[in-house]
C-alpha cells in the first residue's frame, strides 16, 4: 500500500516535471526541471531495489549530464533570453502525430499479456553487478564493457576536438 502511494507520487512528479521541461520558455529552468525528472526516476529504481542503477543514475545523469547541459546553456545563451517556439501549425501537427503514435503503442502493448517469471526474485547487490561487468564467462559482460569504455573515450576526445578553437593552431605556427 505504502509503496503504491509512493509509486504514483513519483510517476506524477515525473510527468509534471517532464511537461514543464518541454514547455518552459526559459532554458535554464527547463534544465532544472529535467534534473527533478531524473531524480524521481532514480527513486523508482530504488523502489525496485536496483541500488546500483539508482546510484549510477544519480551520479551520471543528475551529477554529470545536467551540469554539462547547464554549462553549455550558460556558454551559449543569456539567462533571461526567452526561447522561441515553433509556430502553431507545426506544433499542432506534431501533437497529432505523437498522440496517434502513443495511442497505437498503448493499444498494441496493453492487449498483450505478459507472463511474470516463476523464478524467485534475485537480489542483485553492487558486488553482483560489478562481478558481472568484469566476468568473461557466461552471463559476463567483459567485452561489451571494454568496447563501451573505448566508445566513451573516443566520444569525449571527439567532443574536445570539435569544441576547440581553431585559432590556436595558427598561434602555434
Amino acid at each position, binding site marked *: 500500500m505504502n509503496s503504491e502511494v509512493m509509486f504514483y507520487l513519483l510517476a506524477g512528479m515525473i510527468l509534471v516535471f517532464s511537461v514543464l521541461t518541454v514547455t518552459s520558455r526559459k532554458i535554464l529552468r527547463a534544465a532544472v526541471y529535467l534534473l527533478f525528472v531524473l531524480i524521481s526516476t532514480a527513486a523508482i529504481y530504488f523502489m525496485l531495489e536496483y541500488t546500483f542503477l539508482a546510484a549510477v543514475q544519480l551520479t551520471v545523469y543528475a551529477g554529470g549530464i545536467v551540469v554539462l547541459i547547464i554549462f553549455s546553456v550558460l556558454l551559449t545563451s543569456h539567462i533571461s533570453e526567452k526561447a522561441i517556439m515553433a509556430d502553431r501549425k507545426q506544433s499542432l501537427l506534431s501533437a497529432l502525430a505523437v498522440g496517434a503514435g502513443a495511442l497505437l503503442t498503448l493499444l498494441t502493448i496493453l492487449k498483450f499479456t505478459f507472463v511474470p517469471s516463476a*523464478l524467485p526474485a534475485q537480489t542483485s547487490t553492487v558486488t553482483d553487478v560489478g562481478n558481472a561487468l568484469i566476468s568473461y564467462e557466461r552471463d559476463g559482460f567483459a567485452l561489451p564493457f571494454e568496447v563501451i569504455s573505448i566508445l566513451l573515450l573516443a566520444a569525449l576526445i571527439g567532443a574536445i576536438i570539435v569544441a576547440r578553437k581553431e585559432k590556436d593552431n595558427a598561434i602555434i605556427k
Partner: protein
Amino acid sequence: MKEISSAIQIIPLDSYIMLSVALFSIGLMGVLFRRNIIAVLMCLELMFNSANLLLTAFSSYHSDPAGQVFVFFIMIVAAAEVAVGLSIVVMMKRNVESVDINLLNRLKW
C-alpha cells in the same frame, strides 16, 4: 532466498508501461516543437529515460538482473551522446551566433 518485496509485485506492469509511453511521448513532442537545440537535447534525455525505465521494470518483472547491465550501458552511450551534442552546440554558437535549430535547415533533405 529473499521474497521479492519490490514494487513490481504491488504495482501492475501496465502502470510502468503507461508511465514510460507517456514520458516518451512528452519527450518526442519536445523534440518536434522546440527550436532551441539544447532543449531538443534535453528532450532526448527524457526519451532515453523512459526507455531505461521500461527496461528496468521488465528486468524486475522477469527477475533477471542482467537488465541492469544493459541500462548501465545505455546510460554510458547517452553520456557520450550528450558530450558530443553539446560540443556541437558550442561550435554552432561560435559559427552562426545562434542555437536556433532552423538555421541548420540546409542539413535537411
